[in-house]
């Protein structure tokens, strides 16, 4: 009983302490807030520490915002920073999606003025305020808490851009209430870097009532009072009724989908209500055309077909560029400056067609005017060059919910030439649907070559007659294996085998384990100690099985124990340190490094050299071969590692695979020589035929 009480008391005390934290925090918070708001000195101190920020500009309240104000000077910023508004908006202005060009969408997120200005400021007091936040210094850094009961609102102002690109007077078009409820936030700073690490630096102020943005942290307003093809600039202001702060910069504008139309010189970020939808309804289309039709020529010969050699879901659209698109031919910078291209982009619209009738055309993508590098390269020899676009959002086979029939959705495409605002409509394409191909014909030549090489290897494996002597050149490293094992046996020292540092999904490791199996049999017969430290657990498991079977095959199951193959660590240099330690302590007479290695290759080889071991290395990592060659006695270079298992087995069928590889080498040699000759002839001659042949040869394997 006494023991139970003795145990319960501390637990009870702990529980009470934990429960008291929220109450304490709340009490402290309230007390602190009261202290700050009522203490003029502390309030002034808080104001002075308001950080300057690019996005925040504070003016005294004005009845009407001046037209196109200049940026405030640093002195102005400093003098008005006493207003101490802690919020700034990050604004995004974009075309309103899914309409026929009649609205602009304004979205914003209200951010706390970043407290990251604490960075580098060593003079932050242990307690105090920073921009209205109550600061306390804790073990892990600073904590800042704040309670905000202010009713904030966001004013949206709009100005139309003139022909000179400068905005006219800004007029307030909307005021949106935000915040208004008690808002508590706690943020924490790292004590060394002063970075905020929890939760993050963004505060979210929600609009009251049922007006919610799509995302609860973004708020938005649709300005539908535009639509005449002009461009507009917007500013947002945050106010509590007494103080007001304007934003001067918004995030890059997204007019439709072509980000290159955004003129980055505008800090205000002009927006044009872009067309995302072309109505199918004839009367709506007529209204659309009257407002937004351009005078330059439309694209022609718009065709749509299933994108070949894919798993479905993509349609290839091709068209002839507009006759007024000047960038179809390559032009110099001077020409582009003096004769700007009236066409800046092509916008692609898609409508699903059912039973012969198409719905509204929805914008799915855009491409820049002129021909891009790939289009120009692919149609190098064509007289008429087309532009293309791949719609990878096409639907796959689906089931009609009413009839239950399966069908592939058909789409009609409309490509328009655009100058950023106005459009020139081409004729819609005939409907096309996306289908799955059963074979990727872009990889046909790759398949043929791979088939030939594989067939040759398999043929030689199967058809080498037993007893027939194949000429296989001597590989010094493999010839020396027996000698190396014998040396270790004579000296009474162990053999160290390192199967690389990659896992069993690497062919080099598999080859290394196969070689380990063959060598382990010989080692078991000689009764020499074997050590195989591994870097991957799967390699350890496989290695154990292999070595166990090898010892069994050698008739020495008693000599096997699981500690022959051990696991050290996955970490590259931890593994190397471990292996080096084993080498220096156990002093193996023979070190075998076979498999995939990276930077640790030289460390292993040099350590082996320092203990006087005979070293045989083999890897298919070309970057590590020089280190092994410099530091080891024998090195298996690249394919010799893969040939080793056939070599050591002396099985004629396995050796036949080496002959099959020679067929592959022959193909490679012929291809290299042909390519070099063709490239030279195509370069030197002006024959279009030769250039076409070379281009064909060059692109044979481009799809891999």
């Amino acid at each position, binding site marked *: 009983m006494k023991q139970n009480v003795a145990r319960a008391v501390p637990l009870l005390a702990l529980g009470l302490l934990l429960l008291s934290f929220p109450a304490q925090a709340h009490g402290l918070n309230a007390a602190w807030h009261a202290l700050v708001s009522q203490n003029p000195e502390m309030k002034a101190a808080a104001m002075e520490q308001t950080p300057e*920020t*690019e996005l925040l500009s504070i003016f005294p309240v004005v009845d009407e915002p001046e037209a196109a104000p200049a940026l405030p000077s640093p002195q102005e910023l400093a003098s008005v920073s006493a207003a101490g508004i802690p919020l700034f908006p*990050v604004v*995004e202005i974009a075309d309103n999606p899914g309409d026929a060009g009649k609205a602009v969408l304004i979205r914003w*997120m209200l951010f706390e003025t*970043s407290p*990251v*200005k604490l*960075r*580098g400021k060593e003079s932050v007091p242990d307690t105090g305020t920073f921009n209205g936040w109550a600061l306390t210094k804790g073990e892990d850094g600073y904590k800042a808490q704040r309670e905000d009961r202010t009713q904030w609102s966001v004013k949206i102002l709009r100005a139309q851009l003139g022909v000179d690109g400068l905005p006219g007077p800004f007029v307030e078009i909307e005021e949106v209430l935000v915040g208004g409820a008690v808002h508590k936030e706690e943020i924490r700073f790292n004590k060394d*870097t002063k*970075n*905020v*690490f929890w*939760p*993050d*630096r*963004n505060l979210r102020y929600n609009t009251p009532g049922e007006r919610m943005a799509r*995302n609860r*942290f973004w708020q938005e307003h649709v300005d539908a009072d535009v639509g005449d093809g002009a461009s507009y600039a917007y500013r947002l202001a945050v106010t509590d009724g007494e103080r007001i702060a304007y934003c001067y910069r918004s*995030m*890059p504008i*997204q007019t439709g989908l072509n*980000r290159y139309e955004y003129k*980055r010189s505008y800090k205000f970020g002009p927006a044009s209500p872009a067309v995302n939808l072309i109505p199918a309804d004839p009367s709506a289309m007529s209204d659309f055309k009257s407002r937004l039709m351009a005078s330059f020529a439309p694209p022609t010969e718009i065709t749509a077909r299933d994108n070949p050699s894919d798993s479905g879901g993509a349609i290839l659209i091709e068209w002839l560029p507009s006759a007024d698109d000047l960038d179809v031919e390559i032009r110099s910078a001077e020409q582009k400056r003096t004769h700007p291209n009236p066409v800046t982009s092509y916008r692609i619209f898609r409508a699903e067609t059912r039973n012969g009738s198409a719905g509204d055309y929805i914008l799915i993508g855009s491409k820049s005017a002129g021909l891009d590098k*790939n289009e120009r390269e692919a149609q190098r020899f064509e007289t008429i060059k087309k532009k293309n676009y791949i719609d990878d959002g096409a639907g796959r086979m689906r089931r009609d919910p009413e009839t239950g029939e399966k069908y592939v959705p058909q789409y009609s495409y409309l490509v328009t030439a655009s100058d950023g605002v106005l459009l020139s409509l081409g004729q819609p394409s005939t409907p096309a649907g996306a289908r799955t191909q059963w074979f990727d014909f872009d990889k046909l030549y790759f398949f043929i070559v791979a088939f030939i090489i594989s067939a040759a290897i398999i043929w030689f494996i199967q058809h080498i007659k037993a007893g027939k002597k194949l000429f296989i050149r001597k590989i010094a490293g493999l010839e020396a294996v027996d000698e190396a094992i014998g040396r270790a046996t004579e000296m009474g020292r162990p053999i160290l085998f390192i199967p690389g540092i990659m896992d069993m999904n690497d062919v080099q490791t598999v080859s290394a384990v196969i070689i380990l199996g063959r060598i382990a049999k010989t080692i078991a017969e000689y009764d020499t100690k074997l050590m195989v430290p591994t870097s991957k657990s799967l390699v350890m498991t496989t290695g154990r099985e292999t070595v166990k079977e090898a010892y069994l095959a050698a008739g020495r199951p008693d000599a096997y124990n699981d500690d022959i193959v051990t696991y050290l660590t996955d970490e*590259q*240099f931890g593994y190397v340190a471990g292996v080096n330690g084993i080498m220096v302590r156990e002093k193996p007479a023979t070190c075998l490094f076979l498999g995939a290695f*990276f*930077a640790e290759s030289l460390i292993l080889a040099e350590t082996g*050299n*320092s*203990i*006087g*071991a*005979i070293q045989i290395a083999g890897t298919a990592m*070309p*970057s590590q071969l020089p280190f092994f060659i410099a530091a080891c*006695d024998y090195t298996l270079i690249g394919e010799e590692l893969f040939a080793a298992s056939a070599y050591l087995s002396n099985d004629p069928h396995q050796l036949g695979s080496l002959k099959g590889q020679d067929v592959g080498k022959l193909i490679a040699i012929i291809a290299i020589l042909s390519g070099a000759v063709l490239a030279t002839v195509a370069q030197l001659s002006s024959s279009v035929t030769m250039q076409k042949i070379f281009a064909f040869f060059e692109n044979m394997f481009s799809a891999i």
Partner: protein
Amino acid sequence: MADTPETTKKTGWYQKVRDIDRRIIFLFIALAVIIPLLLQPSFPEFPAQLVKDTFAEMDKLPEGSKILMAFDYDPASEPELQPMATVWTRHAFENKLKIYIVALWPLGQNMAEDTLNELLKEYPDRKYGVDYVNLGFKSGGQGVINVILTDFAKMYPTDVYNKPLSQIPIMKDVKSIKDMDLIINISAGFPGLKEWVQFGADPAGVRIIGGSTAVQAPLLYPYIPNQLHGLLGGLKAAAEYEELADRKLCGMKCGQDAECIDSCIKEYAKRDKGKVRMGAQAIAHMVIMAFIIIGNITFFIDRRRERKG
């Protein structure tokens, strides 16, 4: 076979030089590296054309461009690759580019954090979520690249601070790596630059530049210039890039004043890790060459003696 000098009688300076203990070599190398690192002498750098092309590729991006930076290395390769990571991040912050950070190596995420922490001291007004975002590490190597080729959110539903991508302003109009203006990869091995070129940049049609260890660089030359548009191979290339960056910054600061530019470059050289470490590399190379020459001299003397005797 080992050439340990245990049994050889060291009877004179020639024997001592011929059978030099490797620990003496280690000592000289240690001094050759430590002294320049402590004294930090500044040596001139002459940027190669490939480095200039890489610099131009980055510098031509307009303000607000999106760059994907993949940190695929670990602390072991930090000495060689960190200068590249630092100078590229600084270049991005200086030019007000938007940085999207990913990592295919587990410790790459930490290397990215360390880089950012260092650079944010120089650019404290760069805001997380607005100017840069760290999406962190995902395992799977090229599998990760295959997925983010079409959709970031499928592989990275949140950033490294568990914040959903939809709540991060910088991710607003970014769906996949096809929306990037440039990919930068700093890689020490596998998965690395080769995988980013083959499975990321080339299929997406996005330009890519990268940094690798000097040992790996030759394997990447076949991809230049069509698929890989810039490469910094090793510490020297990183130092040359720092030189170009410093020249640009000092040019902006000092205009045409050559003296001002020189002193500005010398001032910046102290913070440029690549340049500082290149001093050590240069001296170390000279020490290695000296030992090679000594080894060959003793080799030829021995061979002559054998032929005579």
